[in-house]
């Protein structure tokens, strides 16, 4: 344990999913105590168990990020359990990928609530309760920075979150509250560099996932799909004292795809 985050308490939404679990393990390895939150209790408890088994300290908190009262309860629970809150990772989110002409109003509302409104409510709740300053890390996506086919509603929701990151960073500078606000922008990241079967829902079955994998590798200057741990390394840096002057930026972890575009 190198302890870059010793003493840090981190709330990680979507701690039930693969990326949230990777963040939880990476943060605990660096000495942070972790609250992994989410809707799926079984998977969240499993994340906490894996962290504790690896010698870290984590709990699961049930959490629907679209409800302000849930945020209140989760932050109360965090402060009661660990006594402080230093880092929020707004990681929970979801994608619906279709051409604009096929998207329903319900798709748009769902994506906005989960990818934009949830993190918005979270920042509102945590900023006043980070007593010694802190770090907020919003997880966005490359299509929040550039246009992409089939991503209209998803990309405006995440693009809104990207811009919210910049704006809230300025808010916090002006208020002098010591809270830094940044984004991690992952490219396509899968464990072992292979698109997981779980991704087939958005990419149209196993054949779609295979084609997606080939396309991504061809488009990525570094010529491979990244690992979830690559994004976790960026988040650890942004949460740590090493990033004490870093706020309002987008930390892109994409194998070089955005190098020519931002």
């Amino acid at each position, binding site marked *: 344990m190198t302890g870059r985050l010793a003493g840090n308490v981190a709330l990680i939404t979507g701690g039930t999913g693969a990326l949230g679990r990777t963040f939880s393990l990476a943060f605990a390895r660096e000495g942070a105590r972790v609250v992994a939150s989410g809707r799926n209790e079984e998977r969240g408890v499993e994340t906490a168990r894996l962290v504790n088994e690896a010698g870290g300290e984590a709990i699961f908190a049930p959490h629907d990020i679209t409800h302000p009262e849930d945020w209140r309860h989760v932050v109360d629970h965090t402060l009661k359990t660990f006594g402080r809150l230093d880092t929020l990772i707004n990681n929970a989110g979801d994608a619906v990928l279709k051409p604009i002409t096929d998207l329903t109003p319900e798709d748009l509302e769902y994506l906005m609530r989960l990818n934009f409104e949830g993190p918005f409510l979270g920042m509102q709740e945590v900023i006043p309760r980070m007593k010694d300053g802190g770090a907020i890390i919003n997880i966005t996506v490359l299509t929040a920075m550039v246009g992409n086919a089939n991503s209209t509603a998803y990309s405006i929701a995440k693009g809104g979150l990207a811009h919210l990151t910049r704006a809230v960073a300025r808010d916090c*500078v002006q208020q002098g509250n010591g809270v830094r606000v940044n984004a991690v922008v992952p490219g396509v990241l899968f464990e072992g560099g292979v698109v997981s079967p779980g991704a087939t829902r958005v990419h149209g079955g196993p054949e779609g996932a295979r084609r997606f994998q080939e396309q991504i590798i061809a488009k990525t200057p*570094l010529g491979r799909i990244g690992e979830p741990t690559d994004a976790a*390394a960026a988040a*650890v840096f942004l949460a740590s004292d090493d990033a*004490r002057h*870093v706020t309002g930026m987008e930390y892109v972890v994409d194998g070089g795809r*955005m190098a*020519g575009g931002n």
Partner: protein
Amino acid sequence: MRAAIPAIRQNGGGYIVNIISALGKTISTEAAVFSALSGGLRIATKSAALECARQEPRIMVNAVLVGAVDVPQLAAGKTGLPDLGLGPTIDAGSVAAAAAQLVCADSAYVTGMEIYADGGYAAAPAR
């Protein structure tokens, strides 16, 4: 970069990090040429990143964009520079920490990217 890239390749690949002023992203008065050159270095960084990503052994090329770094010359008013209004000063150790982040395995999937160690300066409009 021109001198180092062949040597790094010979050694099996690695990392390059360029330290660039935040004025390469935003602007200030009395700094037109400095901003232009700093902005040029940002694009050179990204171009080198693309070239070095496509050729094995790979080299990741990134940048740290910095605000006014708190060095003794600055405190003593001896930099010879006008006041560029770069906001509160940044301690040099944090610039080193950002550079260190970009030259280790933590950045194996990061190239053509910039860490802004500038207290949010470049994220705000010029003033």
